[in-house]
């Protein structure tokens, strides 16, 4: 209820009611906007942004089946940001498996190792012939964060010593000729935090390692200064970045299966539209009520 100029209580109009909209209706609308586009696909075209294209080119240029060249993907995130970052890991692994690029997974966070293992299993569904220890490997988790990055610049095998299941790295031919960053043409850090800064500071600045990143949507704008300076060579921004990478893989006939990020684009589009509609309605209601007062 609002009071008019004669101080008589007045019944709430449409805009007053709208401004007090119960949050449950908002939650319900968001839920519907997420679920319905998953069931009824719109398949909107996905535009490829330059940072995604750059990352794709960096990975694509790594010599295939070369024992002295390996891509490292660092899964530096927890399951909380997995919906955004996991499709990136899967897409990158598929790219490597399709082009026979040797790849190693690692993580600076404890839970990242489990997520790396999940991503490799998912990517292997399309490439069942790839072999653990020959085509790809998951390093053990080692505490120390920035120290791990620095130590890898001196000796990768000495840093990890074992794979994630505790087997000595000497048993895996994939790392026979991998000594330090010199045999790693690029490293992709997937993260929902500021881990990319540690990779820039210690691996790029000190060892001149090419660093690319896959990052959650909210952090993506922070990456642009590093992209412009060349300290980061490519970026996947949020689930949209992962979807762009999946589209690139499909366009180049490296993957036939539609990835989860591409599927998630429709719900994201509709939910963004819904939030925009809410903001517009809230602002109209704000100005209408202010004018009445």
């Amino acid at each position, binding site marked *: 209820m609002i009071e008019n100029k004669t101080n008589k209580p007045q019944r709430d109009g449409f805009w007053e009611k709208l401004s007090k*909209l119960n949050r449950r209706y*908002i939650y319900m609308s968001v839920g519907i906007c997420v679920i319905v586009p998953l069931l009824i696909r719109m398949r909107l075209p996905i535009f490829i942004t330059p940072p995604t294209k750059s990352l794709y080119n960096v990975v694509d240029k790594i010599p295939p089946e070369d024992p002295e060249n390996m891509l490292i993907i660092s899964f530096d995130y927890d399951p909380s940001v997995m919906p955004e970052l996991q499709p990136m890991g899967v897409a990158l692994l598929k790219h490597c498996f399709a082009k026979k690029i040797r790849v190693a997974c690692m993580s600076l966070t404890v839970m990242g190792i489990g997520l790396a293992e999940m991503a490799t299993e998912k990517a292997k569904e399309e490439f069942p012939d790839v072999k653990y220890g020959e085509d790809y490997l998951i390093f053990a988790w080692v505490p120390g964060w920035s120290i791990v990055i620095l130590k890898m610049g001196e000796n990768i095998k000495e840093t990890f010593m074992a794979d994630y*299941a*505790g087997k000595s790295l000497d048993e895996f031919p994939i790392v026979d000729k991998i000594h330090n960053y010199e045999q790693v043409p690029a490293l992709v850090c997937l993260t929902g935090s500021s881990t990319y800064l540690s990779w820039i500071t210690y691996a790029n600045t000190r060892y001149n390692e090419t660093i690319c990143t896959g990052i959650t949507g909210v952090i993506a704008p922070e990456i*642009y200064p590093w992209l*412009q300076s060349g300290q980061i060579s490519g970026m996947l921004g949020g689930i949209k970045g992962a979807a762009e990478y999946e589209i690139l893989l499909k366009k180049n006939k490296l993957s036939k299966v539609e990835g989860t990020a591409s599927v998630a684009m429709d719900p*994201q589009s509709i939910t963004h539209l819904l939030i925009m509609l*809410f903001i517009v*309605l809230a602002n109209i209601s704000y100005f209408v009520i202010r004018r009445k007062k």
Partner: protein
Amino acid sequence: MKRTFPLVICFGGGIIFIIQFFIPHPVSKAIYDEALNWLIIVSVFAFAIALESLFRVHGTKIKRRKPGWGFSVIPLVACITVGAFGIIQGVREGTVFMKVFHYITVPMSATVFSLLAFYMASAAFRAFRATTTRATVLLIVAFLVMFGRVPIGPFVWKGLPDIIEWIFMYPSMAATRGIALGVGLGIIGTSLKIILGIEKGWLGGGGK
């Protein structure tokens, strides 16, 4: 001694490794390599302290039957059982450790974080108002980015991604770079204060 010794180690280590960075001699590299090994080993002890803290905090809560003590039983039981399975069976696919990770940890973490979308929608509805000129500019930019970053934006207007890229590459980047430079200078200043023993907060006791 309890305070002087760590200060001496910090000062010595800081100065030695600043100098070491500029000397590419094999002896210098060997010292650096050995220091890295030490630091990884020291990092392990941080986890030992974390475990001790976890058991002390929750153990005390359970012992004194404080309100909600039942919740404290859960992390302790989870830590002991999952840890034990990890040590006995290992962490390969198919083990209890990995099953707990796949079917409990992952879905629970992802679900809790996904709730953010619902809260953000509600918060945007209640707080995102064009009350001032600055707020209006923020609102317009947010609108453009929200619309342009999802496939429906370029589908409606093909020029939108270029505008979004311009926003990220110029105004947004200028602000981000300014903050990054400030943070960088702050890190250098604080590091020097720690190495020189001016800043002692890291020793505990509020730097007294």
